[in-house]
């Protein structure tokens, strides 16, 4: 089958349409994000709230993250862990529990002190990043992360992880996963801004807000509402049979 030459196709957007389309994410970000989230500067403390009750497990966040950050196939910076949970005293035998996972951008990050070359660091605005120019790919940080949030990127041979889409946040945009979340389960914002949606939602849900593996004392900056205690640490259950690396060597 002959493919049409899309480069010169009339279907290609005109410069003005292209400019308009390019501007849509900025527009949506401006509407969705609290005002202080539009630019990274001193005084911000970026964090995320995941309202598990709103997550529908569609994996739009997973896919958008891979697209935005060119994550190699078989690796993930974020994923919605999905579980089938047996129910007792209910009409149906089992229900589904979903749990979006990502780097927790801990305030006491165990990945930072172990890095032998100081390549992984925490920015003043709370984002934990990897300096890929310095990373030697020793994977010590991969071992030290209690959330299995880090991995070695086989395209770059360096440590990789969620960056809270720092390149987008610095440009005044929301992280890709937040932008595409269908149920509005992911809320990103500035903890230091009392008027931010994140701060308001956290304050409103005081007492219900939890973090993963609190006993590790990592002080995670990804907070959860609706987190079932059975899923807060290593899950005691039957493992999934599908192995991404085995499927996509």
């Amino acid at each position, binding site marked *: 089958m002959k493919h049409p030459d899309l480069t010169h196709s009339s279907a290609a957007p005109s410069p003005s349409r292209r400019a308009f389309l390019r501007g849509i994410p900025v527009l949506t970000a401006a509407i969705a994000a609290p005002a202080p989230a539009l630019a990274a500067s001193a005084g911000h403390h970026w964090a995320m709230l995941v309202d598990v009750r709103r997550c529908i497990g569609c994996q739009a966040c997973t896919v958008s993250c891979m697209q935005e950050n060119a994550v190699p196939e078989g690796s993930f910076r974020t994923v919605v862990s999905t579980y089938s949970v047996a129910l007792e005293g209910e009409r149906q035998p089992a229900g589904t529990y979903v749990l979006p996972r990502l780097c927790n951008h801990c305030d006491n990050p165990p990945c930072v002190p*172990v890095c032998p070359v100081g390549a992984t660091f925490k920015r003043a605005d709370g984002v934990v990043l990897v300096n890929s120019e310095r990373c*030697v790919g020793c994977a010590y940080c991969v071992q030290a992360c209690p959330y299995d949030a880090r991995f070695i990127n086989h395209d770059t041979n360096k440590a990789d992880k969620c960056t809270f889409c720092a390149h987008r946040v610095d440009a005044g945009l929301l992280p890709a996963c937040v932008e595409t979340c269908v149920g509005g389960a992911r809320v990103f914002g500035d903890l230091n801004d009392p008027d931010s949606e994140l701060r308001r939602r956290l304050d409103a849900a005081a007492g219900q807000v939890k973090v993963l593996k609190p006993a590790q004392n990592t002080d995670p900056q990804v907070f959860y509402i609706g987190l079932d205690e059975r899923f807060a640490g290593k899950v005691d*259950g039957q493992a999934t049979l599908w192995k991404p690396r085995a499927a996509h060597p």
Partner: protein
Amino acid sequence: MSTAIVETINVTREIAWLPWAVSYFFLIGLSCGAFLLSLPGVLLQRPGWEAISRLALLAALVCGLTAPVALLADLHQPGRFWHFYAYFTPSSWMSWGAFFIPVYLGGLLVYAWLAFRPLLAEHGRSGGRLARLAALLACGGLESRRALIGAAALAFAGAALVALYTGAELMVVRARPLWHTPLLPVQLAITALAGAVGLTLLLKRLAGDADASATARLARTLVATQCAALAVGALWLLLGLGGLSAVHAEALAEVAPSANWQLAALWAAGATVATLLLAWKRPASGVLIGLLALHSAWMMRWSIFIGGQEVPKTGAGYYSYQLPLGPEGLMGIVGTAGLWVFVFILLTTVLPLDRLATRTRSSH
């Protein structure tokens, strides 16, 4: 394992520290252990230890020169190894390790050179293979006791620091309960010494040394190391089972439900007991107990490194690892072994094995 929860979608994190890391920890452990075995005969001149210590020093050299190559290969950016020296990070044990390794290897090389100078000169005079090179390396073949003591002290400090950093590097990883136990560095040190005894026994046989008293001496050392390994293993288990230590209980709970881990634990304990009994009752079975001790040292590291990374930190169950055939797996192990053989051949050509294994010291 709870059957009430079935994971249907999750990430499988692959092994990030590859078999290269196992090879490194195995070889550097053997090197440090063999260096310790070299001290009674070479430095302290204890009677009956001369041949043992010279062979052990050869083992320390071969393993010590091979180990850093495996370590370098485990980096996913090996060309950036100089970053370790350009960006020293005192909070990281791995960063300290980058400085401890040259201290140890530098001390070891000088110590070995000083110890072997008379033998090199002897080989130079005998006119054997690479005799001229041996004579050149001997630089006259003089013995310098004070320099030897100084080099041994430097190498000893380096070996202690290497043993410390390799153990601590794993022990500080709180995210992996199996590694996060204070007994792990002790277990690594004991099995490294046992493996070094095993390797020395093999070299002794390879050298054609039939000195039964030296074999018995090494067998007795092996009895001591295996007793210590069993005692520490039992303490680990008791601390975990008795709930006396939350860290050990967590580590035990992580692996106890797994049939693979149960088999590995039984295998490790069985092999250690078998080595202990053979070394005790049949000390002449040098090659067999040597191989068993080496096997235990490798297996312990394989289980801790590869098995430890098969335990998900958040997901259910266990990840399954299959050894790849390429450089990231089997070829890496075979390649490291090949390098070991190459270095061994190189060194024993300049310094023949039978000359090292002669019972008395050179008169020069």
